[in-house]
């Protein structure tokens, strides 16, 4: 029996088909679970999808590079999807223009808070310096976070993992948390998601509201830029 499975599995595992199907099925299962949970943000389809795919990858003994080679097409679409955020941004440019001052201040305070608190909490809980430095740029969009991590002496791969986990936290908790502060404005929800959880949290807001998507897109772009500038400066001060 297991010989038969192996016979079918081995050629399948080499084509992108298998991992594309697994990834999409896992995501759709995640969406289904979220619907079953009455749309709760805690049942994040992304988180459920990642856990399911990781379980399949680990159970079949495939390596992560093998999986990624198969799911490359889905991963590739992240680029065009990021570009697509330009459309809500352009459509809401009037709101962006009239809020430039607020965006600048909120962005700067949020960005500094993220970098400083990340390093400080790791240090408080006795984490190593390497972990603290890998934590510092984690709110920036993954490619920027990894480059900054490399520059200041962190572990880029760990920073990538932290950026994604942080994004999931922000996507799950963001909306409920801001509503608890009685913030109901999509501009604040969008910007906070983009600044503290980059693409993952932005995806959560962007799929629901266009004005939120515009401010999330700004948050990702500007916070990436700011993190690349501020993190090396702030970590030099820490030395």
């Amino acid at each position: 029996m297991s010989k038969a499975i192996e016979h079918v599995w081995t050629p399948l595992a080499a084509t992108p088909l298998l991992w594309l199907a697994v990834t999409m099925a896992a995501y759709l299962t995640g969406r289904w679970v979220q619907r079953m949970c009455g749309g709760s943000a805690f049942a994040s389809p992304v988180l459920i999808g990642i856990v399911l795919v990781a379980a399949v990858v680990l159970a079949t003994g495939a390596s992560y590079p093998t999986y990624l080679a198969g799911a490359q097409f889905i991963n590739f679409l992240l680029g065009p999807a990021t570009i697509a955020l330009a459309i809500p941004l352009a459509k809401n440019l009037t709101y962006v223009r009239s809020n430039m001052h607020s965006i600048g201040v909120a962005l700067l305070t949020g960005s500094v808070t993220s970098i400083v608190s990340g390093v400080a909490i790791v240090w408080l809980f006795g984490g190593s310096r390497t972990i603290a430095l890998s934590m510092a740029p984690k709110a920036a969009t993954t490619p920027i976070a990894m480059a900054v991590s490399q520059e200041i002496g962190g572990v880029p791969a760990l920073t990538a993992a932290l950026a994604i986990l942080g994004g999931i936290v922000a996507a799950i908790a963001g909306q409920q948390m801001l509503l608890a502060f009685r913030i109901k404005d999509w501009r604040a929800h969008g910007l906070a998601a983009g600044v503290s959880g980059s693409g993952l949290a932005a995806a959560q807001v962007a799929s629901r509201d266009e004005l939120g998507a515009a401010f999330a897109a700004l948050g990702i772009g500007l916070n990436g830029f700011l993190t690349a500038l501020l993190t090396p400066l702030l970590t030099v001060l820490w030395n």
Partner: protein
Amino acid sequence: MLTAVLCLIACQLIGELVREAFHLPIPGPVIGMFLLAAALALRGGRADGAIPPFLEKVAETLIGHMGLLFIPAGVGVIAEAGLLRQQWLPIVAALLGSTFLSLAVTGLAMHWLTRSSGRQERGDLSLAKHPRGRS
């Protein structure tokens, strides 16, 4: 649809070229996003219909399913499981603490600073339109 896809990919390509040419620390897609937004703004100013409907449709589809696109990168966390397990306490504490703090600070700052701008109704209405907690 193909025109829209070509448009998005061309912007990403231009973004990558700009990044290479000026040695910018920003990823190509983020540069491309700002370039496309600028181009769309120049094209139509603030007028309605400045954005071609075919482009808008493809963009909506991509943004609506952006979560799916993060799964392959997210599965990469298993490759870092060793380090994450070793120092899980500082990592979990800092991830939660720092993300919550930056969410709250950014959200509250934006909320306070825009409260007087008189455009809040637009934001409020659109949030109320969706049932709470749905995605």
